[in-house]
């Protein structure tokens, strides 16, 4: 069988996921339950959406550190807007997220500034904005719209809505990446920006779009999360962006851009969730060790993947 570089990378993450899941299934009865699977998936959904957008950004060779802040901001404005009904609760966070993403995109595409630093600035900016609309974070808006709550907490065929939504968006994202001109542009910009420009790819427009998409999805993830929690929590904790980046990288997408796939990102997101779940299954692991385990795990997966890729590069075509 012929495998492309991408192929091995994404299957690498899936293979590790399968392995870890298998170990979990065998070792922990508590891991084997349907309830546990549901909990795992629904909690992974917001990170999944953020990582989905992040994958697009990273494929163009960029990075988006602002997603964590936008996620929180999206949740807060969604809860606030829910007093005006379901549609407002859904649309406002999308608009706000997309707006922040647009700022990122325009700055990256038009000013030749490094995405790392641009989005680091908007990380601060979006957090400031979130605090500004919540009286320095002290006001927690409660979700007023029942349909909106259902979007976060209801289920279809036993699977929660956020999980369905994430699944559908991942499939859609895959189609966009592989089967549309925009998707090709994303890979081309990340693979070789200069060449892409010379080949007539609208580089700036592509960059603007991926950051806007990333912001939009982070805002949406925030909205879904608020719908589920029933309020616009302001203290969701920092570091969501690093989790998303880790998930994408574990999924085999090159941080330098140009190669990767969404199936890998799903595997990465689930892998982070499974690890966390397994640590909890063990029961009494001190926090400090949890971090050591997560860090070491990240290193091991990525090292394994890099080695796989290298093996691949000397194999015959």
């Amino acid at each position, binding site marked *: 069988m012929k495998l492309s570089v991408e192929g091995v990378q994404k299957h690498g993450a899936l293979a590790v996921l399968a392995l870890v899941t298998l170990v979990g299934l065998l070792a922990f009865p508590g891991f084997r339950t349907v309830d546990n699977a549901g*909990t*795992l998936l629904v909690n992974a959904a917001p990170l999944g959406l953020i990582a989905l957008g992040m994958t697009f950004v990273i494929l163009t060779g960029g990075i988006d550190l602002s997603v964590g802040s936008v996620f929180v901001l999206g949740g807060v404005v969604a809860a606030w807007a829910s007093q005006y009904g379901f549609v407002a609760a859904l649309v406002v966070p999308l608009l706000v997220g997309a707006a922040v993403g647009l700022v990122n995109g325009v700055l990256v595409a038009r000013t030749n500034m490094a995405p790392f630093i641009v989005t680091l600035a908007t990380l601060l900016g979006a957090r400031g904005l979130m605090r500004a609309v919540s009286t320095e974070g*002290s006001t927690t808006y409660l979700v007023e719209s029942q349909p909106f709550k259902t979007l976060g907490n209801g289920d279809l065929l036993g699977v929660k809505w956020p999980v369905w939504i994430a699944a559908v968006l991942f499939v859609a994202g895959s189609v966009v990446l592989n089967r549309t001109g925009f998707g090709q542009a994303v890979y081309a910009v990340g693979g070789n920006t200069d060449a892409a420009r010379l080949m007539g790819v609208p580089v700036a427009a592509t960059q603007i779009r991926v950051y806007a998409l990333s912001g939009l999805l982070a805002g949406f993830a925030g909205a879904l999360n608020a719908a*589920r*929690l029933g*309020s616009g*929590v*302001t203290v969701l904790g920092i570091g969501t962006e690093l989790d998303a980046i880790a998930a994408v990288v574990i999924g085999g997408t090159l941080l330098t851009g140009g190669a990767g796939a969404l199936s890998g990102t799903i595997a990465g997101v689930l892998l982070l969730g499974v690890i966390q779940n397994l640590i909890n299954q063990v029961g*009494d692991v001190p926090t*400090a060790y949890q971090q050591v385990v997560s860090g070491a795990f990240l290193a091991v997966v990525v090292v394994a993947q890099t080695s796989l890729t290298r093996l691949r590069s000397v194999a015959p075509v």
Partner: protein
Amino acid sequence: GKAEETGGTGTDNAAAAQQTASAGPGGGTCTLQQYGGQKIDLKTAKVGFSQSEKEANPFRTAETKSIQDEAAKLGITNLTVTNADSKFNKQIADVEQMIDQGVQLLVVAPLNSDGWDPVFKKAAAKKIPIITIDRKINAKHCTDFLTFIGSDFYEQGKRAARSMAKALDNKGTVAILLGAPGNNVTTQRTAGFKDEIAKIAPNIKIDFEQTGNFSREEGQKVAEQLLQSKPGISGVYAENDEMALGAVTALKGAGRKAGDVKIVSIDGTRGAVQGIVDGWIYGVVESNPRFGPLAFQTATKFFAGETVNENIIISDREYDQATAKDGLAVAY
């Protein structure tokens, strides 16, 4: 009201255990029957404890340890402890997962008061009693959760204000070192302090409010800036002891003398109480983290069919020049 002795005996720090202050105004009551749960034996029960933040600062260390020690003392062998590492979504996932695993009693130190819908939905279906400690959860009593055990943060702020008013003789300018933004504790300790100052000492002006994020280093940095831009400041209200200790280091660095600037803070850690003894801190309002005995006692009562109050507010000590020396023995 007068405190009623409820603390467990036999711990190395019996005198330090929490005491209930009141049943909490306006709170309802709840029984096992009303809650709809099942009678269980705590010893063999599966118990889950969800901690919100890393056990690095003395408060969290003492809190988790207290729960674990008490469980061990009661012979509870099946205790699961999770730590959300200050990530709210992780805490929700942690608790949901513990419910999936079949815990029969949940003790939660919530990171945030709102946002617990998914947990309640899941817990209600299985009728699992939830005891929240140190921070309240905004939810329906006796349906969503059993009881809240903890301090009244607003009241803590008010007590700090009274202490400050006394220290400054009702006049002067005061700076607030705020806790982490968005945190309920920050919000209430700030509101209590400001309201009380406005009421009892209108001549005290609050001139500066910056966050020190509950951390010693940031507290120190902010205090250093403060001392340069407002050298005439007469008091500093730190919303936790760590920031107060940072402010002390800043004062020392700026060549100030002990007692120059009156510092009042909340928590009651040993370091801060020592600070009073050394003369750098004026007063400390305690926030007692030793929830273990009270929490399990409440659970025992509940499963025995007795009535449990919605709010069990503990009485917090206060340390000042007079009580600090002795207080060192009970400070955590």
